[in-house]
């Protein structure tokens, strides 16, 4: 007879006890309850976990060892098993500490429990086998995983919210920008008409009544005419600037060499008058908008000729070479750097960025005519082509304008020229 069995269940339970002793060899907590729900067997794992030895537990009502306010509910479900009912699950979320077991770190063990009816030799009726699994580590890992996932989800949500806000703001900015550009275009166009009238009637006044004016009057009229023409140029340039975006045409393969030659031919009169020289090295063929490339070269070559020294004929050189990087829009396309270099008056290096601003002029309007819009247009055109424009210069030592443009867009491989080629000159 097992010495540790309480007297009240010793005799009839001896064979049952022996049958249940196998439960000492399984790595889970296990106990067997009699049909009266008294503890018939309490395995070693349960003794270790709970600190309750068999001597104390055997023969006692199981519910006295279970925890929680739901004890009656648990007992009822166990009784259902004794009555022939199906096995019962007590999950770790709903019954985490069915049998209170304190861990060395002071926390309570988390348990997943299954109860099933079994027949045990020598016991009349259905007994209940309760198997308790320690799922503390698993629960902890899952809770840590959930926390990490929740945090990640929150971050994703926050990022999406920020992205949506940025997108909204960007669309709003784009819309507002479009409106501004359109306004500039419409205003420029509408201003032209009254200005044309001022100039026309000024001309008539000068022609028909010029003789009746004294010298001061004629001077005033002359100044008024000059100011009107200057305003006309300003409006025209402003219109050109706004049209870079508004009247944008599709991109196509453009032979920059041909464009530069045509521009130089257009400027032949000015070149000849200044005894200047424009030298064009082999330029590439790139995917671009032809009209805007023409505008770009017109401005760059035109500026190089305009800001010549008084005592030295302008020498303008156009060249091109491929570059590795240098363009924030670069998505892997081949990049070309086109350089327009002159021997003109130059400017102080500190103005290298300012010169691309709208209406920015470094020289007085009486010294060099112009509106200060040309380089702003160049910048806008280059940026529309996903390129960058920059300048280096020293006062009295000429200027170097550098334009970096991608060779192709949308993976279209345009035929290219080598960056070393024959030179052509326009004099």
């Amino acid at each position, binding site marked *: 007879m097992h010495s540790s069995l309480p007297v009240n269940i010793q005799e009839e339970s001896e064979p049952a006890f022996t049958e249940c002793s196998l439960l000492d060899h399984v790595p889970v907590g296990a106990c067997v309850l009699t049909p009266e729900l008294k503890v018939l067997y309490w395995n070693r794992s349960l003794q270790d976990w709970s600190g309750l030895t068999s001597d104390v537990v055997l023969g006692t009502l199981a519910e006295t060892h279970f925890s929680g306010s739901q004890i009656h509910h648990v007992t009822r479900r166990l009784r259902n098993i004794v009555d022939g009912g*199906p096995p*019962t699950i007590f999950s770790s979320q709903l019954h985490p500490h069915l049998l209170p077991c304190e861990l060395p770190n002071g926390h309570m063990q988390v348990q997943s429990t299954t109860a099933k009816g079994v027949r045990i030799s020598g016991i009349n009726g259905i007994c209940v086998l309760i198997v308790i699994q320690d799922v503390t580590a698993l629960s902890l890992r899952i809770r840590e995983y959930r926390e990490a996932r929740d945090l990640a989800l929150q971050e994703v949500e926050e990022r999406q919210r920020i992205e949506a806000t940025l997108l909204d703001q960007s669309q709003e900015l784009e819309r507002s920008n479009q409106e501004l550009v359109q306004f500039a275009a419409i205003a420029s166009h509408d201003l032209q008409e009254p200005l044309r009238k001022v100039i026309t009637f000024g001309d008539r006044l000068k022609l028909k009544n010029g003789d009746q004016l004294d010298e001061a009057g004629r001077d005033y009229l002359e100044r008024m005419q000059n100011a009107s023409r200057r305003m006309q140029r300003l409006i025209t340039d402003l219109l050109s600037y706004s049209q870079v975006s508004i009247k944008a045409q599709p991109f196509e393969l453009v032979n920059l060499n041909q464009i530069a030659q045509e521009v130089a031919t257009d400027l032949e009169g000015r070149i000849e008058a200044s005894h200047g020289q424009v030298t064009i090295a082999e330029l590439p063929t790139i995917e671009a908008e032809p009209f805007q490339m023409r505008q770009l070269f017109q401005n760059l070559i035109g500026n190089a000729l305009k800001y010549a020294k008084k005592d030295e004929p302008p020498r303008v050189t156009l060249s091109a070479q491929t570059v590795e990087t240098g363009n924030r829009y670069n998505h892997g396309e081949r990049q070309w750097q086109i350089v327009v270099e002159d021997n003109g008056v130059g400017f102080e290096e500190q103005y290298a960025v300012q010169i691309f601003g709208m209406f920015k002029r470094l020289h007085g309007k009486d010294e060099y005519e112009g509106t200060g819009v040309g380089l702003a247009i160049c910048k806008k055109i280059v940026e529309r082509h996903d390129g960058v424009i920059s300048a280096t210069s020293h006062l009295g030592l000429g200027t170097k304008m550098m334009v970096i443009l991608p060779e192709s867009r949308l993976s279209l491989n345009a035929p290219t020229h080598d960056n070393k080629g024959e030179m052509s000159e326009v004099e």
Partner: protein
Amino acid sequence: MELTPLQLDILKELINIGVGKAAGVMNEMLHTPLELSVPHIEIIDPHHLDSLGTSSCATVCQGFKGRFGGMAALVFPPESASTLVMALTGEECQGLDLDELRTGTLTEIGNIVLNGVMGAIANTLNEHIEYNVPSFQECSPEELLKMQVGDDSKICVLAETGFRTKDMDLEGRVYILFEVGSFGMLLEAMNALIPTS
């Protein structure tokens, strides 16, 4: 096999009693009041299961054997299963994935529902039934039933089951697959409940 409307009514009543008992057990256990209902049941041909859907579901199944054999299963779409577990346990977690903790809880919920239904059937039969321990699996209803049907003839009862709390209204499905002989026993027991005129 076709049941008479009266037999179908009795079967529905039987399952309702079981589900009602399950609701009682769950309400005793949970802080969130849960209402269970069986708005519709039907007998389906287990050899024509294509219409049951092929998408993976969260399934708690419990086999039973002996003179009365077969299998009972509670089936939910995975996200509904997580929502149900979260509602019943008061979890404040964002993700809807069915992790081990949730599958454990769902197994207990399924266990209570299936125990209620099978308990009601067992009482009607006045027959001892031996049960397997319930298990959780993710599979489509078609896969689940095909696995169980095998070559033998079976009768399948489908009971649509509503789970409602104040914040949630979900629908699960209870499938009970009976061996033909077992279903015959159930019919006999049900027929005995019909008063003779």
